Each structure stands twice: as structure tokens, then as C-alpha cells.
């Protein structure tokens, strides 16, 4: 039998020390979602160089950006954000289907661990290259 507790308003971030796993999952999903939609607009803006009459504009823009270490590091951050949003999104879909609600805190921790593992394993691919 589940019980419910009044944990207060989740938007009251000042009491973050009291947040449960589910509340952190909600906050992280919101944060990663905002980053991803912001990136989508930026991504289309950069890819718009493909509409230039000269195709080298597109190639040189991407190559020039990838030459910058800060861009490659930001891409690792983007990967972390995307992987967490995907894994936590799968977790949310299962909860919506009525599966895994009682283990939702454990699956949140699993999402974090898997995100960390995938990101760490991807660092050489993302950061390596033309230093």
C-alpha cells in the first residue's frame, strides 16, 4: 500500500536539500529539455550555412567549429544532456504504462549511472581529433 507525503512545491528550489529522487528526476528532465530545445534552434541556425551558394561555407563552418576544443567539450555536455533525457524519458514512459513506479527512485539512479558511463566512454571520440 503506497502512502503519499506532502513534500511541498517542487518549484520551490530553495528547499532542494529535501528533494526526493523523483523530484530530482523531474528537475533534471526539465533542465535537459530546455537545453535540448535551445540547442535545436542553434543547430538549425548553424546548418543553415548549407543554403549558401558555395558548399564550402557549410564544410568550413563545421570544420572551423570542430577545431575549437571548447566546442568539442560542449558537445560532450550535449551528449550527457541528451543521454540522460533519453534514459529518463524511457523511465517515464514505463511509469506511464504502469510499470516500475515503485522502483522509480532506483531507475532514476540507474539513468544517472548509465549516462555517466556512456558519456565517459564517449569522451575520447568527442574530444579527440584535431587538437
Amino acid at each position: 500500500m503506497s502512502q503519499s507525503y506532502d513534500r511541498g512545491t517542487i518549484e520551490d528550489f530553495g528547499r532542494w536539500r529535501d528533494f526526493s529522487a523523483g523530484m530530482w528526476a523531474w528537475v533534471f528532465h526539465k533542465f535537459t529539455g530546455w537545453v535540448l530545445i535551445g540547442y535545436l534552434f542553434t543547430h538549425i541556425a548553424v546548418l543553415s550555412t548549407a543554403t549558401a551558394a558555395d558548399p564550402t561555407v557549410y564544410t568550413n563552418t563545421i570544420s572551423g567549429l570542430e577545431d575549437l576544443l571548447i566546442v568539442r567539450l560542449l558537445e560532450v555536455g550535449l551528449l550527457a544532456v541528451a543521454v540522460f533525457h533519453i534514459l529518463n524519458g524511457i523511465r517515464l514512459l514505463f511509469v506511464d504504462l504502469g510499470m516500475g513506479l515503485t522502483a522509480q527512485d532506483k531507475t532514476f539512479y540507474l539513468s544517472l549511472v548509465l549516462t555517466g558511463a556512456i558519456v565517459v566512454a564517449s569522451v575520447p571520440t568527442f574530444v579527440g581529433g584535431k587538437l
Partner: protein
Amino acid sequence: MAEQYSSFQRGGTRWVLQRLTAVFLIGVLAFHFMLLHFVNHAADITFLGTQARMSQVGYFATMWLFLVTATFHGVNGVYNALINMGLEGSRKRAVGGVLALAGLLLILQGTRVAIAMTNLL
């Protein structure tokens, strides 16, 4: 204890569409990252390589659907996050209008870019 937090009112049309687009995006976003960072290194992307991929009907269709579903999922998510934070009344309608317009413009520009990348059309 098990608790569930959601910014959506369960069962609504936007709630269902958010989940349907999520299912599609999980696969396509992972595929996009794999193809353009691991199979092809991002630094090695060229217009000719992009054009070769985008000139395959299946790939073009997948990427265009990716654009449309990601835009809907993102803009709808932002709209719901703002409603969750107390947006209502005329401000809600105004913000909804601005977000819908921004989403539409993104899809139009993304389509323009996709067409520029392909030799299918």
C-alpha cells in the same frame, strides 16, 4: 514512497502526442548521435557527405520527421513547463502563440535547409 511528477494533465491530446513523439525521438536521436559522431566523426562532416546521406529518400524522410517531432516535443514541453509554473489567461494564449510561431518557423527553416542538402528535389 513512490511518487510521480508530471507537468502534463494526463490523457490530453498534447500529453499523448508528447509521449508518441518521445518514442520516435528516443530511437532517432540516438541514431543521429551514433551516425554523426561515432560512424562519421563530426570534424569530418562535409557538404558532399551530408548531401550523399540526405539524397537517400529514407534518410531524408527520417531526418525531416526528426525535425518536426523534435520541434513539437520541445516546444510543447516548454509550453507545459511554463503552464506548470503558473502561466494562465491571456499570457498563456500569448506565450502559446509565440511558441507555435517559433516552432513553425523552425520547421520551415529546417525544411529549407534539408532541401538545400539534398539533390532529390
